[in-house]
């Protein structure tokens, strides 16, 4: 038995959602290269609905369907990663991982780098005919009448780990569980048993801290006077230093903005968690009930005490389906009795749109965020006398032409509504719904293939 501990694995995260800043990667990559050890750069760009939007894009253009900002994310760092031995793992393949892989190969050629070995993770997409009955069984009665756009199983870390062990420089996935982007490289690097639940759980929580990018380094945190964050306009993105037992230290590149302390780490540790003793992923059930965070130095916090339990026997599947259209409209009132005029405009719209379904009305500047769809909160408040109010209304309708009536009625308030209404803006957006189900793990195995 070799008792020499394996060197720490550094995993940096340069994107936490599709729509994140695209200039985050360069300082992370330089820090990873400077650290000198084995290193991986991840991008997490796939929220629940992102994949459905990607499927819709691919319907229009068979070459599309991967992260639209792929070039912007990779161009600044691809050559440096390949030179510096920083491997890249991401779910930016979305609905077309092979298309993304081809685009990366073309980008590498354009940049004059060596040809990278690019692996593509397959098996998450359950839209094909082969999976029709599996999906129907898993969805049960809720499948009735669904206009399905996408159906994807959340794959785990194993196929990512296998691809890295086979020599991939870049691993392009579609739907994998977000923490698996970190667990995969850790599994490959440390060679843990695939039922080493404690270590897998620790790496999972390291991945959880990384997966939202700047949310652990001061983003989604700042609150002047209470939670001051230096350099919010230039946030450094996080790097986890993972040891052979899976424990991690979270840090960020020197010279970047933001902060990492026990408070930022605790907030992100609990982000989107329900029962802290049972955080379910395809790789493990992680338990942070006894977890501890400790500040080791400036912008350096250690997470320990995470435990793991056997992974679930099933995989979660997200199914996105078309539900219709969301129509929104806004108009402003200002000066004396502005709020009263905005409230009157809302009443007029409700009357004009009667029968189309519930119309939500918000008074921006008075009450537009904590309120509820039914309007209970707003009705309970007396006119506050606000002098600068923007009325915002919204409705959903399955039929596009019916939804468009809201935009027309808001626009008509220019001449038919209360006095002094100005600044109408309207928008119409396609709506997607999500339903979830589970399938037996074996029915949706993940696998990798190399781009030839």
């Amino acid at each position: 038995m070799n008792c020499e501990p394996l060197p720490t694995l550094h995993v940096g995260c340069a994107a936490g959602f599709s729509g994140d800043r695209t200039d985050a990667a360069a300082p992370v990559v330089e820090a990873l290269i400077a650290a000198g050890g084995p290193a991986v750069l991840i991008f997490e760009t796939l929220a629940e609905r992102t994949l459905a939007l990607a499927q819709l894009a691919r319907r229009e253009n068979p070459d599309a369907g991967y992260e639209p900002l792929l070039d912007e994310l990779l161009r600044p760092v691809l050559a440096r990663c390949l030179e510096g031995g920083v491997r890249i793992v991401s779910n930016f393949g979305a609905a077309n991982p092979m298309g993304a892989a081809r685009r990366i190969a073309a980008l590498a050629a354009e940049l004059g780098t060596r040809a990278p070995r690019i692996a593509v993770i397959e098996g998450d997409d359950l839209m094909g005919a082969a999976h029709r009955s599996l999906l129907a069984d898993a969805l049960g009665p809720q499948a009735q009448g669904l206009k399905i756009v996408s159906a994807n199983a959340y794959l785990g870390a194993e196929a990512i780990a296998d691809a890295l062990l086979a020599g991939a420089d870049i691993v392009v996935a579609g739907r994998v569980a977000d923490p698996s982007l970190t667990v995969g490289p850790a599994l490959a690097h440390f060679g843990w048993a695939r039922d080493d639940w404690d270590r897998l759980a620790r790496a999972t929580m390291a991945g959880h801290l990384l997966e939202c990018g700047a949310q652990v380094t001061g983003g989604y945190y700042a609150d002047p006077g209470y939670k001051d964050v230096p350099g919010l306009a230039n946030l450094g993105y996080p790097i986890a230093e993972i040891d052979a037992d899976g424990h991690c230290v979270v840090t960020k590149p020197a010279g970047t903005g933001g902060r990492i302390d026990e408070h930022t780490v605790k907030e992100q540790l609990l982000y989107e968690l329900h029962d802290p003793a049972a955080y379910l992923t395809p790789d493990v059930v992680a338990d942070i009930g006894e977890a501890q965070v400790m500040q080791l130095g400036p912008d350096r916090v250690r997470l320990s005490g995470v435990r793991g339990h056997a992974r679930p026997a099933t995989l979660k599947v997200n199914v996105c389906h078309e539900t219709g259209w969301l129509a929104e409209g806004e108009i402003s009132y200002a000066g004396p009795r502005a709020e009263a005029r905005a409230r009157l405009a809302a009443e007029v719209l409700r009357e004009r749109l009667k029968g189309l379904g519930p119309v939500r009305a918000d008074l921006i500047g008075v009450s537009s965020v904590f309120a509820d769809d039914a309007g209970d909160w707003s009705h309970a408040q007396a006119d506050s006398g606000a002098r600068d109010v923007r009325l915002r209304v919204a409705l959903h309708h399955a039929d596009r032409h019916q939804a468009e009536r809201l935009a027309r009625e808001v626009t008509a308030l220019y001449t038919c509504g209360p006095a002094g209404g100005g600044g109408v803006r309207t928008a119409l957006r396609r709506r997607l719904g999500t339903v979830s189900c589970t399938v037996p793990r074996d029915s949706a195995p993940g696998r990798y293939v190399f781009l030839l």
Partner: protein
Amino acid sequence: MTTTLTVPLYRAAHARTGDKGNRSNISLIAWHPRLWDLLVEQVTEAVVERQFAHRHPSRVVRHLLPNLHAMNFVLDDVLDGGVNDALNLDSHGKALSFLLLDLSLEVPLELSDCLAGHGASKPM
């Protein structure tokens, strides 16, 4: 004799909201370990359910994490349908942590040094 202060909860703790479907989770994290017991006593499931009553939670569950001096509230069905179905502007409920932090807390005078910020606090 003045023995306690009434302060806004945000002086004793900070919070973050996450969402999954029509379910919101809001973490509440003590600014100082000595404030933890007060949070456990006063920021109960019942109090939180009342604060969010107009959003009609079907269930409010509180999970305690004493090591972290933190608790996690899970509120079911408070997002007007969630990110796919809600008609509201903040369909993720990102801002809801600040509705929680709008609660007040009774703090013994001797713990006032543990509070964050300098918001108005009035002796009772």
